[in-house]
């Protein structure tokens, strides 16, 4: 256990000092929340100006009241249609007709008011609306899923790459001459991969909670950790005795194919969401996939060691 912890810590240090690793982990962590934050800043700075509505003098007060309730600027003009054509107002109405040179959503909103006041039997309702806060949280969860997929692929590549690269550089050979079981260096790399990527994933989820009040963040986190742990285990088991210079492509292709297939399986068979990777894209509670994913590390390390022994 002591050796495992030391080797794991050394691998974590190496990961965190590798510029490419740090860059690859940092950008998706901040991609979602930063994009959202920048969008909010943009909207705050460059928000759509309050809508001006041109109306003729003496227009039905009921319409004016509703316009004012929407905080639209009412522009009284003898010729509302001309006001739109001249660009003095983006929308206009005389109580019977709606003119618009702006977004359809504004025209529809104005038409809705006019129809309402005139007692129309039907009305248009714009479907594109700013979602309510609870809906934003769910959308944040949807945004997390592709990020989780990315971290899962990272996990597979990190686990495979850390073994293959160290084998080519003879680092793994030196570690294998330590008085420990063959599976220890492999398990150390799996643990380091899971630690580094789960931390980054946790920060990602946390930022989504802070910026978008992400829905069910704990379940998202646990499903992600399960997928990371399982993908890293898959990578470790698949790389076996291969190295970067020889034989990396085949396990990499097989691993990518497998994880993509497992995610697709989860989309097709919703009930299998309790499995790690498979459950990444659905709403199954996260504890089971995380637990199963974390349990896969030791057997994967054993398979890795068995394959190494067989190839040496």
């Amino acid at each position, binding site marked *: 256990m002591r050796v495992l912890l*030391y080797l794991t810590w050394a691998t974590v240090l*190496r990961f965190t*000092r590798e510029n490419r690793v740090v860059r690859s982990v940092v950008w998706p962590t901040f991609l979602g929340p930063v994009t959202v934050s920048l969008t909010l800043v943009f909207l705050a700075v460059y928000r759509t100006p309050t809508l001006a509505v041109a109306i003729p003098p003496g227009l039905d007060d009921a319409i004016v009241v509703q316009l004012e309730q929407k905080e639209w600027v009412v522009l009284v003009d003898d010729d509302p249609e001309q006001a739109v054509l001249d660009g003095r107002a983006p929308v206009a109405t005389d109580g019977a007709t709606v003119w618009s040179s702006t977004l359809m959503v504004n025209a529809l909103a104005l038409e809705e008011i006019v129809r309402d006041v005139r007692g129309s039997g039907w009305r248009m309702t714009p479907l594109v609306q700013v979602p309510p806060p609870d809906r934003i949280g769910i959308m944040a969860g949807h945004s997390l899923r592709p990020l989780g997929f990315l971290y899962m692929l990272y996990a597979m590549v990190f686990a495979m790459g850390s073994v293959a690269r*160290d084998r080519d550089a003879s680092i793994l*050979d030196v570690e294998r001459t330590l008085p*420990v079981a063959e599976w220890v260096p492999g398990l150390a790399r799996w643990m380091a991969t899971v630690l580094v990527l789960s931390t980054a994933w946790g920060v990602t989820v946390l930022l989504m909670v802070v910026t978008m009040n992400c829905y069910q963040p704990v379940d998202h986190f646990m499903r992600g950790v399960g997928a990371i742990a399982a993908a890293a285990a898959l990578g470790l088991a698949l790389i076996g005795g291969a190295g970067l210079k020889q034989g990396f492509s085949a396990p990499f292709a097989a691993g990518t194919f497998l994880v993509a297939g497992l995610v697709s399986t989860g989309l097709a068979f919703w009930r299998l969401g309790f499995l790690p990777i498979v459950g990444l894209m659905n709403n199954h509670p996260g504890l089971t996939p995380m637990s199963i994913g974390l349990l896969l590390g030791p057997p994967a390390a054993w398979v890795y060691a068995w394959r190494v022994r067989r190839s040496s």
Partner: protein
Amino acid sequence: MSAPPIVVRDLVKRYQTRNGPVTAVGGLSFEVRAGEVYGLLGPNGAGKTTTLRCLATLAEPNGGSIHIGGIDRATDPLRARERLAYVPAEAGLPERLTPREVVRLFANVQGVDQPAERTERLLAKLGATSFANTPCGDLSTGMKRRVVLARALVHEPPALLLDEPTDGLDVPGRRDVLEVIREQRAAGRGIVLSSHIMGEVEKVVDRIGVVAKGRLVAEGTVAEVLAQTGAADLDDAFIALVGEADEPPSE
């Protein structure tokens, strides 16, 4: 009397290839005593590295036996590993860790008493203190070699396996490494030194074993091997011996 650091008997190692099994080592036997440097010499592909990898428990022999410090590596590989250190031809150093971190890591992993003090002593002894905090990836070949030796010696193993330890080093670097080897011999370690550079081998080894096509074709002190071949120097002796091993011990 304690067991010799390294005893190899009838070692056989075969590899499977597309063209069938190839015997890399075919019935090799030798022994390295405490306080002795044994030069394992041979041309490229002779089986030197394969032999060292079998000794280091990195490759599984197909036949024969290996004892490290009296421990059979086949039945108790973990205890055998406690008694050896393997220095591969490549440095095998993590580029992002510093020499101090690397040596300290191995001191901790090997369960050495007072790992921090032991690390500092070794770094100082090998002249690596001045660059102990520089990432290994930024070190010269000579500096890396010192770190590698410090890492190998941190648990004071009775058996030391050195694969081409002076490969790629300049003259001062080679001299430093050979000096370290002499010191370790004086400390009582049994050392296997694999090399194809006869001149430097001659300077440090007590006995040599010349391997060609997986077989031991000559063994003894340098003087004995020269006498056996009638050659004037080790280079000529080497050529004469390797030329004599014309039949490969393959299947």
